[in-house]
C-alpha cells in the first residue's frame, strides 16, 4: 500500500488529536488527555514551536472505514544530554491498527532518525510502558536499549498541585 510521510501542517491537528486519543486509549489512560487540536495548533505552529510532528497519509481509495486518510503520526522534540549533547525525544509514535504491518511505523521512525541526523543529534530517546510487548519488540529489533532495566532510570514528575506547592513553598 502506498503512503507518504510529511511534516504536519496546522490543518492536520484535528487528525493528530484524534490519533493521540486513540493511542491514549491503547495505553489505558484516555482520561489523562486534557488538550485538544487548538492547543496543538498553538503550540506546534506558532513562532516558537514546542514540538515537531510527522503525519503518514494514504490515498483516498485506501481511506479507513471511518473515512480518514491520515493514518499515523510521530511527535518529537529536541532535548539535551549533559553527557552527549543534542538528542531527539520521540514522544509519540502511532499507526492506526488497520494500517499496521505495511512499513508505516518503520518509515515514520526512519524519518525521525533522518531529522535527528540532519540536526547533528547523537541519540534518540523515548519511553514505552512495561506491558506493551508489541512496541517493546518493535523497538528492540531496531537496536533500542532499555535504560530503565540497564541503568535503573525512573521517570519522576511534579504535577498540578505538587508543582504549585513547590512554587509557593507551602508546607
Amino acid at each position, binding site marked *: 500500500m502506498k503512503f507518504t510521510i510529511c511534516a504536519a501542517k496546522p490543518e492536520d491537528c484535528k487528525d493528530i488529536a484524534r490519533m493521540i486519543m486513540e493511542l491514549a486509549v491503547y495505553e489505558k*489512560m484516555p482520561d*489523562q*488527555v*486534557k*488538550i485538544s487540536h487548538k492547543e*496543538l495548533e498553538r*503550540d506546534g505552529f506558532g513562532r516558537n514551536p*514546542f*514540538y515537531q510532528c510527522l503525519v503518514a497519509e494514504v490515498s483516498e481509495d485506501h481511506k479507513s472505514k471511518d473515512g480518514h486518510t491520515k493514518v499515523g503520526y510521530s511527535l518529537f522534540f529536541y*532535548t*539535551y*544530554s*549533559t*553527557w*552527549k*549533547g*543534542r538528542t531527539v*525525544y520521540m*514522544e*509519540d509514535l502511532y499507526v492506526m491498527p488497520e494500517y499496521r504491518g505495511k512499513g508505516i511505523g518503520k*518509515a515514520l*521512525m*526512519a*524519518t525521525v*532518525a*533522518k531529522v*535527528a*541526523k540532519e540536526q547533528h543529534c*547523537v*541519540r*534518540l*530517546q523515548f*519511553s*514505552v*510502558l*512495561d*506491558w506493551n510487548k508489541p512496541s517493546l519488540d518493535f*523497538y528492540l529489533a*531496531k*537496536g533500542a*536499549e532499555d*535504560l*530503565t*532495566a540497564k541503568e*535503573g*532510570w*525512573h*521517570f*519522576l*514528575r*511534579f*504535577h*498540578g498541585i*505538587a*508543582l*504549585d*506547592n*513547590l*512554587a509557593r*513553598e507551602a508546607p
Partner: protein
Amino acid sequence: MANFILRKAEPKDVSDILRLIKELAKFEEMEDQVILTEKDLLEDGFGDHPFYHCIVAEVPKQHQSADGHMIIGFAMYYFTYDPWIGKLLYLEDFYVMKEFRGFGIGSEILKKLSQTAVRTRCSSMHFIVAEWNKPSIEFYKRRGASDLSLEEGWRLFKIDKQNLLKMTNEE
C-alpha cells in the same frame, strides 16, 4: 553560610557548568560517558537556537569552595511537550557541590524552576532519577514528586547514533 544567589547562566559560565556536569556524572558512576565540551555548551546554549536553559548558584569570594570555585551548583532544563497536557519543563541536571549542601540551595533552585514552569504555562516538571539514588528520590518525594515508572510502568529507551544511521539507510 547563607549567602548565595541564583542567576541565569551566561556564556562565561560554561567552564564551571562542564566541571559540575562531570562531578554529577562521577557521582552517578558514569564520568567516562561525558563527551560534551565547553564549545558544545556555548554553541548549544547561547547560540541562535538554545537547546537548553541553565541556572547557576553562586557564592561570594569569601565563601568559595576548597578548590576556589564560586559557581557551586546548577540546574539545566528545557521545554518539552506532552500530547495529553501540553508544555512541560524537563529538568535534565540538578546538582549542588557536596560541601555546599544542607544550606537550602537545592530547595531554592527547585523552587525557582517550579516558578518558571508555572509562569511559562507548563502543567508539569519531569525528570529522571536512577533507582539506586535513594537520597535524591527521597528529596523529590518529600516535596511531592511521583514516580511514573513505578506508578504507570514507563521505561526509558535509547537508540544510539549507529542504529539511527542504520534506520535512515534502510529507507
